């Protein structure tokens, strides 16, 4: 899929662990892993908003379009 999820990069920049983010988002670590590995079919605006709020970033920092 040409949409890349750069959640790992943002987590590393904020020095936050996946488990901590999952807890703050109120989703399971498994679901966060699905999102990080690009296996998710979509991301809800609610989830994206919460990620941006927690990681203090913009949606563009999380999602990237790359032509394949």
């Amino acid at each position, binding site marked *: 899929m040409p949409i890349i999820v750069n959640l790992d990069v943002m987590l590393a920049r904020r020095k936050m662990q996946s488990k901590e983010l999952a807890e703050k988002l109120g989703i399971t670590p498994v679901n*966060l892993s699905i999102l990080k590995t690009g296996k998710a079919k979509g991301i809800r605006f609610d989830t994206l908003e919460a990620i941006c709020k927690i990681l203090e970033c913009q949606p563009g920092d999380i999602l990237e379009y790359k032509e394949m």
Partner: protein
Amino acid sequence: MAQTKIISKILYGICLVLSVGYLATGVYSVFCLLTGFGITPYGEGRFLHINYPFTGEPFLNVDNDYRYIVFSFLLILVSYGIFFLLSARVFRVFFQSKLFTRENIRELKVFYCYNIFFPLPLAVAANFFVEVEAMVWGLVFIHFMLGIFCLFLANIFAQGVNLQNEQDLFI
């Protein structure tokens, strides 16, 4: 959905009780007929009373003929015992926390297979040995239709499982 759960719980209980009743009666009848316990012949030996346990009070009346006993009595008791057991399991599906699962589809599949594929061969087999009443053929048809409805329901559930799996990938 709360209404469905309440109704299905009540029907689950009723079907389970009916199933236990039919199957227990079947087992008790087989025991009595094989051992002669609680059996009282009447009508010059043409009929039998199966008495309530440890009493002389008639519980069931049957013809003293093995074809009648097997095809018009025991077969009905056992097959309806199984039918009510499977019905109870289908009703149990509707008060589970997660409705669309592979296990629930399996319960529906067992139920529709039993209703579609069993009644007709049983009625045809019984027809060779005893006189099958017209009402029985009507029941066979009703069970077939019930099976078909359940088949459609199982297909809807299968679609539901696919949609749910897809939905689970939206984070």
